[in-house]
């Protein structure tokens, strides 16, 4: 394999659609981009509105937002691990195609774990609904705070949910230990060159440089782990630039102060990652006890910091799951979350603002400019998948080069290449700001003379095969 390119052939158009609309509609509009992380978009958007209207939310509103956001992380990370990552590890990367999915995982681990996964996901969504008004596409974020408080009864229910989520996170980490870390073959796979990409890493940290999903400064470390930059979201343009290639619609953000050197890794290339793994790499630790001890074990086991192995992202995600559940409990135990004072009414003339959060998949930036009446003049979104676009391409190339020999592209080999891609859980609906829906993955293999020798399309589930007309 000489090279591997990852193309995103979608069309853009979302930013244009937003222009001329009242800026307060942005949390609702952006949360509709897709159904997987509406909470992240709605939160980045709400924070951008705080900045547009120069308003500081009261402490209870910030805590409610973070409580909501922790519940979102719990729901997202649970699903991600069991649905997306588990088939490769529980069933094995070489298992027959038909078994390597969540149904196979249920068959192997039992129905109990499946209902537990869905129950804990559903409970986290209940918490989201209690705080944010509804389970999906919540719209309670407003400039200066949130549109409704929670009751004492709801606070107590969320606390109970959080307790159970912590136990479930611990159980999931144990499962990861038993299935993945106790298997030398998997440990070898995780540490192998095929899945290692040395890049800069990016993520939000609090004032003590601890992981924070909701707020803080963006910290960047170099491939050796040294702090390279630390900045407020509002200054993102001084640090991040976007490179454009003619063959893909999706841009390649890179570190401006290192420079774009192409799709290459290493210290001289401005390519960075913003993933769950990156968040652990850029931080000095976690603020919660159990997650901190898992954090320490993670770096101790892998023997270095930063960790560059892409497949460790799955493990990092589970440590974050535990942290989110613990943070959810902490916040639910704070009596202030049931305060009735949840909004500061904005009085300044709107102009411009940037909102940054960590989405489950990585750093998410919303940037709006408005006229004096608050109508949108310009929108720029940099979503997690866009941040990771260059790194994803490099990881795929690396896996393809290490794993494909001659032109033998067996199903197992193809799946192993996909594993490099899957660890990022990319979202191309929101990265290209277009139609959500099924991703069609097509692998084209060219010979040395650039002649197409084989094309493999990942088969899709036929949508209508279950339909019977009545």
């Amino acid at each position, binding site marked *: 394999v000489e090279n591997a390119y990852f193309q995103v052939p979608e069309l853009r158009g979302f930013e244009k*659609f937003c222009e001329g609309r009242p800026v307060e509609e942005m949390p609702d509009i952006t949360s509709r981009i897709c159904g997987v992380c509406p909470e992240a978009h709605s939160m980045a958007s709400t924070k951008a509105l705080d900045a547009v209207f120069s308003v500081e939310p009261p402490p209870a509103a910030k805590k409610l937002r973070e409580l909501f956001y922790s519940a979102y992380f719990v729901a997202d990370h649970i699903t991600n691990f069991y649905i997306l990552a588990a088939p490769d590890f529980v069933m094995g990367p070489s298992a027959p195609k038909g078994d390597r999915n969540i149904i196979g995982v249920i068959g192997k681990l039992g129905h109990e774990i499946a209902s537990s996964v*869905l129950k804990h996901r559903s409970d986290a969504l209940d918490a989201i609904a209690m705080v944010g008004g509804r389970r999906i596409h919540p719209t309670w974020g407003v400039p200066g705070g949130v549109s409704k408080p929670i009751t004492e009864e709801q606070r107590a229910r969320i606390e109970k949910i959080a307790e159970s989520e912590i136990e479930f996170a611990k159980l999931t980490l144990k499962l990861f230990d038993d299935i993945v870390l106790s298997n030398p073959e998997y440990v070898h796979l995780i540490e192998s060159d095929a899945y290692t990409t040395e890049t800069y890493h990016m993520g939000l940290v609090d004032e003590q440089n601890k992981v924070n999903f909701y707020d803080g400064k963006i910290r960047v470390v170099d491939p050796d782990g040294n702090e390279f930059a630390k900045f407020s979201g509002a200054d993102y343009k001084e640090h991040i630039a976007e490179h454009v290639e003619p063959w893909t619609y999706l841009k390649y953000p890179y570190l401006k102060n290192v420079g774009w050197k192409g799709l290459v890794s290493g210290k001289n290339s401005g390519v960075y990652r913003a993933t769950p793994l990156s968040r652990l790499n850029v931080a000095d630790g976690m603020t919660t006890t159990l997650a901190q001890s898992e954090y320490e074990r993670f770096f101790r086991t892998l023997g270095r910091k930063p960790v560059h192995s892409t497949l460790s992202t799955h493990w990092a995600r589970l440590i974050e799951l535990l942290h989110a559940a613990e943070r959810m409990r902490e916040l639910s135990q704070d009596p202030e979350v049931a305060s009735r004072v949840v909004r500061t009414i904005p009085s300044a003339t709107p102009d411009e603002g940037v909102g940054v959060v960590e989405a489950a998949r990585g750093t998410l930036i919303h940037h709006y400019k408005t006229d004096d009446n608050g109508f949108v003049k310009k929108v720029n979104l940099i979503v997690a998948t866009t941040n990771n676009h260059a790194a994803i391409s490099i990881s795929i190339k690396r896996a393809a080069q290490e794993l494909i020999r001659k032109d033998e592209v067996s199903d197992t080999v193809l799946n192993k290449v996909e594993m490099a891609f899957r660890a990022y859980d*990319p979202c191309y609906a929101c990265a290209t700001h277009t139609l959500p829906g099924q991703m069609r993955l097509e692998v084209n293999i060219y010979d040395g003379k650039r002649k197409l020798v084989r094309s493999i399309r*990942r*088969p899709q589930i036929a949508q209508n095969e279950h339909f019977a007309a009545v």
Partner: protein
Amino acid sequence: MPTEQYSTKGIAIIGLGNPLLTDEGLGLQVIRKLKDDTDVPDSVTMIEAGTPGLSILSILEGYSRAIVVDIAQLGGKPGTVYVLSIEKQEPKKHPLNIGSMHEVDFISALELGWSAGLTIPTQITVIAVEPKDYRSFGLELTSEVSEAVPLVVKEIRRQLATVLNTK
């Protein structure tokens, strides 16, 4: 909107789709129209679900019956109304595992729910309309799909009457 979360479970009418993408907004528009009608029985819950992915399971949980409204590209003329039924069946061995969480579609979510033994409806009626444009950003339905909305509402009422009479 607590009515959506804490209703006594009976029959759910669920609007799916993305309101930003022209005809993709059909499901939500139909639900809004039904919510304005005063004669829908209290035992029926109307839910604007949007694009819930796997979360459709926690929406469906506990309901005995569900009617889902969405667009479906089945090859007919734009505006054609289809009535389809999804029945619980043994999960097939799908020849793929997903590349991203964003690929969990409605049918896969249902299969997962059934496999995990959730109390979700075992039979779901889908009332779908052939779209004309579901790729352009826009808040309005195309005229073809918009004209189908009264037909969809009529069909929902017919389905409801059947279900409620046979209870």
